[in-house]
């Protein structure tokens, strides 16, 4: 278990950012999803000890989030969303500096800085001034400083923001490599659902400061609902109203297909009965793979 939190509350003045979040995060790569203002960054900041929750308890890597913040930070790597650098420095000095601050001896930090810079693909430009780095290079640099002290847990806040598709792919490959082969647990907060889908096995979805969904991606897809693609012949409006009344969510696609989200407990034959009663012919009925986008949309209640 990398983190356990219970009944976490945090407000910025009268605005509730987190409202009674309880979670247990297992090992592996975990995606933290939610619309703007859902409380993702606040949750990350509380887990790192930047903010102290007004109510609730929690442990990260077994350390108390209220009492043992320095210990948490020693074993956690953090890659913030914003560009961060210290002007007048090269990447080696920058990375080694943060290794030292994490508790590495100076020589070791310097040696390790070279290694991680090669790992993230900045080996050739490690002596260049940071001010001259491109957006993609800065992103890699942030990853390098986050892993320089070989953390047990890595917090990545929007790791692929400001990157072109190629840069995005490379950063995702790195994250995947770190999380799957290097025994480092990763918690990724992102708006880009496909990134989470490609890297994470587990997701946490927050909405308006509350927990909207949490679990293994595969299990969530199975348990919450089933998605079917249906095409009918005949008057569709009555049919759609009937299955909506049965608890299904229905979307019409441009090519006249219906995407029907069927609740887990509902008998699929109900759909056919509804079609028969509405005098429609079901011409196409195929189980479809739900995407994270579907899951997200349902969890936060948006189309």
């Amino acid at each position, binding site marked *: 278990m990398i983190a356990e939190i219970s009944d976490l509350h945090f407000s*910025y*003045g009268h*605005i509730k950012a987190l409202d009674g979040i309880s979670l247990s995060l297992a090992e592996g790569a975990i995606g933290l999803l939610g619309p703007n203002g859902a409380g993702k960054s606040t949750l990350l*900041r509380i887990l*790192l000890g*930047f*903010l102290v929750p007004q109510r609730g308890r929690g442990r990260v890597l077994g350390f108390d989030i209220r009492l043992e913040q*320095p*210990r948490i*930070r*020693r*074993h*956690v*790597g*953090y890659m*913030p969303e*914003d*560009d*961060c*650098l*210290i*002007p*007048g*420095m090269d990447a080696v*000095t920058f990375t080694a*500096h*943060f290794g*030292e*601050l*994490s*508790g*590495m*001896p*100076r020589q*070791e930090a310097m040696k*390790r800085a070279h*290694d*991680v810079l*090669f*790992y*993230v*693909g900045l*080996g*050739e430009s490690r002596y260049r001034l940071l001010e001259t780095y491109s957006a993609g290079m800065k992103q890699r640099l942030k990853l390098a*400083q986050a*892993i320089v*002290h*070989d953390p047990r847990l890595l917090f990545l806040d929007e790791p692929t923001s400001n990157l072109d598709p190629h840069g995005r792919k*490379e950063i995702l*490959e*790195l994250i995947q*490599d*770190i999380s799957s082969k*290097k*025994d480092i647990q990763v918690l990724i907060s992102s708006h880009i659902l496909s990134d989470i889908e490609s890297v994470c096995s587990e997701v946490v979805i927050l909405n308006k400061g509350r927990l909207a969904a949490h679990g293994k991606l595969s299990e969530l897809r199975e348990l919450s609902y089933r998605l079917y693609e249906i095409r009918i012949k005949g008057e569709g409006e009555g049919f759609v109203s009937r299955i909506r009344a049965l608890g299904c969510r229905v979307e019409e696609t441009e090519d006249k297909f219906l995407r029907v989200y069927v609740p887990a407990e509902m008998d699929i034959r109900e759909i056919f009965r509804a079609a028969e009663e509405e005098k429609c012919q079901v011409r196409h009925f195929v189980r479809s793979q739900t995407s994270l986008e579907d899951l997200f949309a349902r969890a936060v209640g948006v189309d």
Partner: protein
Amino acid sequence: MTIREKGYAHWDGQLRERRFPWTPITSLGIRLAYKKKYFRFISFGSLVPAVVFLVGIYISERIEDFQYMLRGNKQPLEVNPAYFKTYLCSDFLLFMMVMILVVSGAGLISDDLKHNSLQLYFARPLRKKDYLLGKANVIVFFLLLLTLIPGLLFIIFKLLFAGNFQFLASYPWLPLSVIGYSLFVTAFFCAYTLLFSSLSKNRRYVSILIFTVYLFSDILFGFFYENYKNPAFALISLKANLQQVGSWFFRLKPAYAVPWHWSLLILLAFGIAAALVLVKKVRGVEVVK
């Protein structure tokens, strides 16, 4: 070299808890300051008075050898507490200290604010006080090089040139005065610089603030003093306040007829206000309410 060509390897060392977690911040700040050409020039120039005063101490002990240079001047060159005060509170030295603050201190916090690096610092096992101490100690290092080190060297060289301990026997409290005043002026300038550095993300504005506030307070004092002949206006000048407190440290009569403790109170109040602002301004995340 492409990504992962070299591969990731775990580090087999042990992360240790530092007794002074701020040391990497200080050492980096000092190294970055020396990278600047201007700074090397200014720091070299600011050591000139120390060399001149050291030569003065040598001459004071070998006064007979230098009679021909004195050209009938009967006033002997005497090394006493006033000599030390003259060095440590001289307009030139204080000005050079401000110049060092402008070049090496202005960006200490403002650069971190501008480039969002505070969150990187606080994602490490660092407390706010460690961060501030690390930054302040950069200034402490440069200012003590100009105050404490020359002050103590003057005493040591005075004893060496004299070949006896007469000087120390006459003024046994002088080393403490040198240490006390050096630490006081350094602490004040730390608070002064870090306060301005935390107020803006633009290092240039901070540099201008550091320079202007010091200079303008003195110009204002000069203007009012010349017009109203009231020594109480010395309290608006940072330089005059430092010199007033310096007089007390060296057991001398203050230059202006204002109680020295008023100056001390003003400087302390400035320091406390600076500390409060710093605690408020320096944090790992921008909290938007």
